[in-house]
């Protein structure tokens, strides 16, 4: 056990994804040793982000307004939705410049081990959008993992009765990782070669 304020920070840091107890301790003591202004800037930027940025009402992308810049852009094609696991996957797909529709951020992938089923993801919101926005194609751009694959299959199963075409990225992406492990060319090829589920 450390001094209570240090221990509190360690506990908070170790709740972040990919940060274990030891890394959390390292980070906490690093922050104790840097200039106070540097540490405060980190704290302020977290506070500022949380008070000014929110989730888009439509697609759950990060936004400063009610809807994100992509959703309010009238040049975007409203008949297709690209479903991603996380908001940070959106710029990765945008870089390929091949997708002109709008997005939907699920908030993760199905994983019973982690206690995540369809109810923990934004599946019903997706279902509602497909009906309400006149969508004809949904591209499941989930991660190339066992969980991502299975989530794509679930989306297909959920949306097929609505008469919408559901596709997934072509194989060829680095297996087992996040979307951004792939370079733009590879990802662009996977997007262009998408297959109907």
């Amino acid at each position, binding site marked *: 056990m450390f001094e209570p304020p240090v221990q509190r920070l360690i506990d908070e840091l170790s709740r972040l994804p990919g940060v*274990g107890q030891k890394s959390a301790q390292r980070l906490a003591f690093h922050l104790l040793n840097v200039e106070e202004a540097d540490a405060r800037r980190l704290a302020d930027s977290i506070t500022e982000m949380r008070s000014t940025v929110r989730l888009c009402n439509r697609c759950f992308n990060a936004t400063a307004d009610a809807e994100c810049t992509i959703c309010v852009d009238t040049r975007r094609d409203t008949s297709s939705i690209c479903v991603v696991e996380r908001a940070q996957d959106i710029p990765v797909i945008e870089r390929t410049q091949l997708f002109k529709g709008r997005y939907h951020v699920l908030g993760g992938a199905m994983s*019973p081990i982690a206690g995540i089923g369809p109810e923990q993801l934004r599946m019903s919101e997706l279902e509602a959008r497909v009906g309400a926005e006149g969508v004809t194609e949904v591209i499941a751009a989930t991660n190339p993992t066992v969980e991502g694959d*299975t989530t794509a299959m679930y989306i297909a199963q*959920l949306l097929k009765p609505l008469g919408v075409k559901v596709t997934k990225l072509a194989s060829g992406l680095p297996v*087992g990782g996040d979307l951004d492990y792939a370079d733009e060319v590879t990802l662009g090829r996977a997007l262009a070669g998408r297959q109907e589920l």
Partner: protein
Amino acid sequence: MHLTWLELVNFRPYEALRFEPTEGVNILVGENGAGKTSVLEAIGYLGMMRSFRGVPDRALIREGSASAVIRGGIAGGASETTVEVELPSDGRRTVLVNGKRPRRVHDTFLSVPVVVFLPDDLDVIKRGPRVRREYLDDLAATLWPQAGQDLTEYDRALRQRNALLRQGGRETDTGTLDVWDGRVAVAGAKVLLHRRTLAVALQTHLHHAYKEVGGSGSVHWMYRSTWDSHSAGDIEALRVALAEALVESRPRDMDVRTTTVGPHRDEPDLLLDGRPTRTEASQGEQRTVALALRIGAYRLIEDVRDQKPILLLDDVFSELDKERARRVVPLIENGQVFVTTARDDELPIRGRRWSVSEGSVS
């Protein structure tokens, strides 16, 4: 293929080790607990991406260290490949091949093919079907990286389906179960196909190896699968068969909250002249079949890859009688071999001797 150098940092008893073995036979001599097997374990890790002792990665990290590192240079043909693995005590391991992340971790299997002989190899004959499934899966992964990838995906999908059943029991949401069934079936069909392909590819080598180590009669794999009675080798037919079997076993699976059908429950058996070796062969016959399985694997890898694999013999000669040892040695001594022994004499194999003690090899 041969290992030209090995570096260990905070791996098992080794704080920092640099070891440059010979291209031929390397004999590691030392007291029990001196760290001989740890050297073999590190070399094996570079080839299989796990410990052959079946322990979790964190057990490999030296007491009190934040991470362990295994680094090795492997020469094959004209080029040298460097493989590096870092195992942190928390967080994910990093694997680098020539300084870059491989597309699939299993691609490293191509760089470092290894075959391991252990004193408890008899287990593969005597124990339940799990060890025989592992034998087939390990060898398939060494030959074909995709097989290792497919097996990892099958394990993952199966663990997810089991977690779902454990949480839901009879109330499990069938829509969610449907998609997990689908994913398990896709991966499971591939796993079965790899095992079957392997059993066929291995047959000739197994047969010859069995004769060479003095066995009489003939050895065959018999692969029993409860969910695929017809033996069509078509991947799509296998996928459909497994998907149907999963649907059929669903009520039972929901009751017992786990998956009761699939490649993880299959029963590969070894038959000697048509009789199961597990129950009907003598101890001597079993030992001969176990040896033939290792030598057969060695030969198959050599055949498919056109390179001799690196052979790791952990204290094997203490278990072998003189006659079998005399027959085995000429079959293996031409490639790079690592042998551990507690005694400094009486080994039926000659080579460069290394003394292992207190975290050093000299």
